[in-house]
């Protein structure tokens, strides 16, 4: 990766996007005309809401009393001893209501939906975590909710499908294309195109058309703001390295964004390498993709020589997406964030290690980040502070893990 030269380095890495929704050459609003008025209305509503103390107060109230924030910053003592190097902290967003960071964003977006007078909620989901979080806030605010989920993902995430139904959501199986997350997002966009008046689309990642990458980032930045205050109070200084997994990239952006302008904080993002980035089964958009236009934004994308989108693969359904948020693509190109990868097997080993050493079952998504922590921690001095984002808990993954380990649950 190239470091930005003094001439190209921006004054701030936190100023984006520009008023057209671009981070450098990435982002934008590549959507059909039918959606454009909706996208503009959402942008205007958010611009107003973010300045409104009443909106902020309601958001903060729900994050504290409904979600359970702030989440702890936990010193993982035994993990640190195990690797014998850097001091490892885990940001415990898996302790949130619904078990992942996804709810932070859903609370913010449903408050926007209510302000805009929308009466119906839709969302896409891959692993089901964003679907569960969306169904949860829809129930809490009494709005009907439709979740689009690929038929393939429904089969491998049955507990979450049932959870969404218990919460009153209608889970619509997506049978088009490859029947996974990208197709669920296509289908949710089609629904939004068809119901522009009454429907609010809660996108779960820092991907999609502007303003979503910005507003999801803003709602997830509570992770990084808390982590910053917590590490300052615990250690009296900023961390040396941040680590988070990226699919679309919302948990990573949430942790990273408040630290982007701290030049001494190294930032590492970890993509899912599936069977390996030199095989054709992985989800590493930065490592093996090229810039493209997909789901409303220009960003790095897994695509073939004809510009057709390639299906991603990861053991973790939450990272199983062929694109990545546009702000990540920009942070990669300007050299502010270093991108790494971890394979399915590496994530699986990290999953088991954390369970045994710390008594925490991490989701398979942050297990990718934990593998990377294990790669760098032994090489770093004991006073080097690492914060890794533990963005979800592993209960949802026990079936997938059992299958890969060749074990029966019952």
């Amino acid at each position, binding site marked *: 990766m190239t470091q930005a030269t003094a001439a190209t380095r921006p004054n701030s890495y936190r100023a984006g996007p520009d008023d*057209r929704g671009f981070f450098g050459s990435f982002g*934008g*609003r*590549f*959507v*059909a*005309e*039918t*959606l*454009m*008025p*909706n996208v503009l209305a959402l942008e205007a509503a958010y611009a107003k809401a973010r300045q409104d103390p009443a909106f902020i107060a309601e958001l903060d109230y729900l994050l504290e009393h409904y979600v359970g924030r702030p989440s702890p910053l936990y010193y993982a003592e035994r993990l640190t001893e195990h690797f014998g190097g850097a001091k490892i902290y885990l940001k415990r967003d898996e302790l949130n209501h619904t078990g992942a960071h996804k709810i932070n964003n859903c609370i913010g977006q449903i408050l926007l939906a209510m302000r805009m007078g929308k009466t119906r909620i839709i969302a896409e989901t891959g692993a089901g975590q964003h679907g569960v979080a969306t169904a949860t806030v829809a129930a809490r605010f009494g709005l009907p909710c439709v979740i689009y989920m690929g038929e393939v993902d429904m089969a491998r995430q049955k507990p979450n499908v049932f959870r969404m139904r218990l919460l009153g959501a209608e889970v619509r199986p997506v049978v*088009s*294309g490859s029947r996974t997350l*990208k*197709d669920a997002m*296509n289908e949710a*966009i*089609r629904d939004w*195109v*068809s*119901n*522009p*008046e009454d429907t609010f689309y809660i996108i779960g990642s820092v991907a999609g058309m502007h303003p979503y990458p910005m507003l999801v980032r803003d709602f997830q930045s509570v992770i990084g703001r808390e982590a910053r205050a917590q590490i300052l109070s615990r250690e009296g200084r900023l961390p040396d390295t941040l680590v988070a997994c990226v699919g679309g990239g919302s948990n990573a952006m949430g942790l990273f964004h408040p630290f982007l302008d701290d030049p001494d904080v190294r930032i590492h993002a970890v993509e899912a390498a599936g069977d390996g980035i030199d095989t054709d089964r992985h989800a590493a958009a930065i490592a093996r993709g*090229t*810039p*493209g*236009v*997909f*789901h*409303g934004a*220009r960003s790095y*994308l897994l*695509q073939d020589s*004809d*510009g*057709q*989108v390639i299906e991603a693969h990861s053991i973790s359904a939450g990272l199983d997406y062929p694109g990545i948020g546009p702000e990540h693509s920009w942070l990669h190109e300007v050299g502010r964030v270093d991108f790494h990868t971890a394979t399915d097997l590496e994530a699986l080993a990290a999953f088991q290690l954390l369970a045994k050493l710390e008594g925490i079952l991490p989701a398979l998504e942050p297990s990718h980040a934990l593998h990377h922590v294990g790669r760098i921690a032994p090489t770093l001095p004991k006073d080097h502070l690492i914060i890794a984002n533990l963005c979800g808990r592993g209960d949802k993954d026990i079936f997938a893990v059992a299958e890969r380990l060749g074990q029966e649950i019952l």
Partner: protein
Amino acid sequence: MSNDLRDDGRISKCFEALKAKGRAGLVTFVTAGDPNPAASLAILKGLPDAGADIIELGMPFSDPMADGPAIQASSLRALHSGGSMKTTLGLVAAFRRENAHTPIVLFGYYNPIFHYGVERFLKDAREAGADALLIVDLPPEEDRELRDPAHLAGFDFIRLVTPTTDDERIGRVLEGASGFVYYVSIAGITGTRAPDLATVRANLDRIRAKSGLPLAVGFGIREPAQAKAIAELADAVVVGSALVEEVGRHQGASAEKIASAVCDLVRALAQGIAQART
């Protein structure tokens, strides 16, 4: 952008001829390479005689997010049978060797063009004999990087107006449009609901007040009777999903059989349109 460069283009000639005949045009959408290269070429060759005035040719894309199930399926059939930007442009060139007058509008999503390279695409598409571009996911806010060079290369750039395009926006949408304006008759994806005539009429009046370009109406038009009703109001009627469904129904058959099934349907639609305004 001035229209001077394109005044003698196939699209303006086509609409002048339609005006002289006093009838609306029929724009037929099919996907390039659907269900296979041979059948797709046979369909293209048959369309003008069956009554198509303009051919809208879909450039297949893996993730057509503004299209309904019928057009998604046609895109996948084309890709599975080896379709690509290269084969799409090859199809245009093969058609153009035998037909010099029927305009071809290339329809699709931006990524395959962006990946092929904008300059290279414009050069190759122009040489193949395409006349206009309609790129669904390039709204006026994002189309500059393709529209400006496309105009310079001599292409018409078709813009979409939808029921959700309000008065404030409509001027902006029409500003960079050329060739014709495509009015999307429903808020939704292709081939799903049927348009409401009163709404279509009101919206066409709204567009006519701001633009002298011919108006084509599409999305949700499947039957000859519907085509006739729309032809009373618009300068052209676009039919797509009904045609690619016909392709899908006959996908296992011979190229001739598929082409004749599609062309029979086109003939019926053209007859419907011919009965309008009489």
